[in-house]
């Protein structure tokens, strides 16, 4: 299926002229020698290989490191568009944090009848042992990577909230580094907001969420599952950029009511753990007794206020796609305002009427598992064969509450560079949001993911998507 015909082209107007956001870039591009651009295009990959910006893939034989394809045409957002997005994101993130706090305390939103209790009861992402506990500073969602899609000049939608452990920020930073190394003159011509201080902002934001027992200079560390994790590069990168230790579960133990890491001069307490492991691998005593990755007793220390875990355990409940469908109500309930950023229309298959509608319109809809992520386990009706649709129908009928459905959005396009010149491809956008008691801090930029196949709407890197540098223009 090609969504391109009716999609919003971010670079060009309907008459083929260039939109204001891209005019400086376009002028520069027209002046470039095609042979040179082709060479730069090839160089970009070598550059990523050399710096080791790879993700690990485990096939049948042996570990393999792959590159996420990089496209050298930037995705451009004007200062005005960005300001608007920023307000919407702040509102949404603030509501999500309040919502999670409420779910683990008085559950006002359920008492008020705005969302049904069944959504989180029996939901594995809802952690009973977080009930009644407030993390340091009241912050649950320290780092959020909201996925936005665009369908028109002013139409941005939130597709996913990613309030658990969003990844990809290293690509935001390295894509910019690569672009500046390849085309320094471009950055002299176009005023692009800098993203490079994200690690410093992250370190600062995390330190601001330190527990009371921490000293003046809280010790922050990044917790990784280890060298074989797909996103290990990013974990090491962030630790290095923040000047923080990169820890594994085996480096940690609980001592004197604190979580301590094994340094060359003995065990030293850690104040804030930026964890890139899932909840169930945090504490074998509390969650998963088979886990070799966790730190026995860490949850007890956490609940006693001896350490900050970012993001807070139990935050994943807000990433549930059935919960997502209630986000407009959630935003309104906690902020008292209408949502500035709309949701994508979502049909909950648990509702009988919705299910009927979805079954009748499978060929036009996107159907997702409520707990799924990464583009797996979903049906994209318009690009699926009859057999695929019928197979999916059986799964859906067997367990309707496991699914939600959304219309197939005409995602906006941004050009990519090919040997034949610029050609439009669908994109989405993941800005990175830092939350501390002091403020909600959004770095001007983000990760633009791009579907490299013509007409494809799947931008996930696990399914062949690529990335672009994302420019927020200065006024």
């Amino acid at each position, binding site marked *: 299926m090609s969504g391109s015909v009716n999609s919003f082209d971010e670079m060009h107007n309907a008459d083929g002229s260039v939109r204001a956001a891209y005019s400086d870039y376009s002028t520069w591009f027209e002046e470039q020698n095609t042979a040179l651009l082709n060479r730069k295009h090839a160089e970009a990959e070598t550059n990523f*290989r*050399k*710096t*080791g910006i790879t993700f690990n893939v485990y096939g049948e034989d042996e570990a393999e490191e792959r590159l996420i394809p990089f496209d050298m045409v930037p995705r451009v957002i004007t200062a005005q568009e960005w300001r608007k997005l920023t307000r919407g994101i702040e509102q949404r993130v603030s509501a999500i944090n309040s919502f999670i706090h409420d779910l683990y305390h008085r559950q006002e939103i359920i008492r008020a009848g705005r969302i049904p209790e069944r959504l989180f009861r029996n939901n594995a992402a809802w952690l009973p042992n977080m009930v009644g506990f407030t993390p340091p500073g009241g912050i649950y969602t320290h780092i959020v990577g909201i996925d936005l899609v665009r369908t028109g000049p002013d139409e941005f939608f939130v597709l996913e909230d990613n309030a658990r452990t969003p990844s990809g920020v290293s690509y935001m930073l390295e894509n910019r580094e690569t672009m500046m190394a390849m085309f320094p003159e471009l950055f002299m011509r176009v005023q692009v907001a800098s993203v490079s201080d994200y690690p410093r902002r992250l370190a600062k934001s995390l330190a601001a969420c330190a527990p009371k027992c921490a000293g003046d200079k809280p010790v922050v560390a990044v917790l990784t599952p280890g*060298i074989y994790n797909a996103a*290990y590069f990013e974990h*090491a*990168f962030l*630790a*290095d950029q923040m000047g*923080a*230790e*990169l*820890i*594994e579960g*085996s*480096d940690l133990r609980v001592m004197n009511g604190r979580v301590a*890491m*094994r*340094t*060359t*001069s*003995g065990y030293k307490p850690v104040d804030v753990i930026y964890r890139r492991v899932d909840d169930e691998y945090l504490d074998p005593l509390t969650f998963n007794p088979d886990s070799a990755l966790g730190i026995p007793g860490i949850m007890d220390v956490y609940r006693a206020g001896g350490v900050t875990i970012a993001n807070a355990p139990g935050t994943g409940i807000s990433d549930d796609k059935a919960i997502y469908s209630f986000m407009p109500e959630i935003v309104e309930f906690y902020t008292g305002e209408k949502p500035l950023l709309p949701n994508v229309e979502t049909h909950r298959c648990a509702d009988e009427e919705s299910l009927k509608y979805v079954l009748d319109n499978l060929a036009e809809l996107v159907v997702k598992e409520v707990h799924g992520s990464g583009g797996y386990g979903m049906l994209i009706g318009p690009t699926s064969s009859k057999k695929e649709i019928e197979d999916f129908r059986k799964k859906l009928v067997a367990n309707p509450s496991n699914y939600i459905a959304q219309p197939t959005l005409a995602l906006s396009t941004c050009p990519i560079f090919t040997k034949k010149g610029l050609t439009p491809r669908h994109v989405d956008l993941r800005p990175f949001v830092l939350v501390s008691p002091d403020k909600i801090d959004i770095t001007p930029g983000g990760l633009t993911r791009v579907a490299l196949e013509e007409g494809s709407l799947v931008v996930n890197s696990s399914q062949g998507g690529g990335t672009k540098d994302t420019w927020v223009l200065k006024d």
Partner: protein
Amino acid sequence: MLGRTANGLYWMFRYLERAENTARLLDAGMRMALTKDIVTAEEEWRSVIATSGQRAGYEAKHGTYTGTQTWNFILRDRDNPASIRTMFGLVRQNARLARNAISGELWEAVNESWLEIEKQLADPVGENRVLEVMGTVRRAGMLAHGAMAGSMLRDESFHFARAGTFIERADSIARILDIKYYLLLPSLSWVGSSLDTGQWDTVLRSVSGDRAYRWLNAGQIDARGICEFLVLDNRFPRSLAFCHSALRQDLAALARLHGQEGESNTLMRDADTRLTDLTIDAIFDQGLHQFLLDFTAANAAVGVAIASDYRFLA
């Protein structure tokens, strides 16, 4: 820093040194074999395999010693845990483990070298490429040490990296010396024969000490002089005395940074005492083989003590 990270750094540099030393050894053996007829060339390859400690692995796979088989086994055989390819993979893996304790320049130097070595070793290496590949491996070591010297903070990470380098280097020199001596010099009466001179020249080449030795000794090649040079001359960066003098400084720096001395400092002092005021005559009287055995054991003990003093493992 984390004990686990320190362990990663230490082993990153040990493997780097080991890979580099293996390449030097192979290079010297290659040169030797080129000057021989086929039968003695086979002996030379056998000696290269024996000196690099890969004899059992090699003989489990190959019945004969040929140049192509030898260098492909040492360079790229995946079944050989001591192949340069395996070792360089471990260099990179440990660099990844210690990624936030090394500079970006050092990481990129190691990563780029790894990519290049993997590329060059993707296919079997023929006569026309073998010198080039060994050059790449040696250059990889120099690149990494250069990047380290020019960009790394002089904190504990720097000293752990150097400790790994010198422990490994000392071990490797002692082993080369011991095996060559044991294999090639069954009695002191051989000293001065032409075969012997060639073999000792190889020993010097395999630690890149031929030029330095010539300058210091005006071209005189004799076993005693070479042993003295490789064991006791602390002007040469690949002598045992130099390695231990450097190691002692790094361990002292680590003790200073940590505010206390450990077992490694004590063992280091003991090892030092044994080398100080030692003459080559005294070593030969005791027997070079016994001396090297003692040295290697003391060197290894320092390595074990470093790991325990600085909590490398849980």
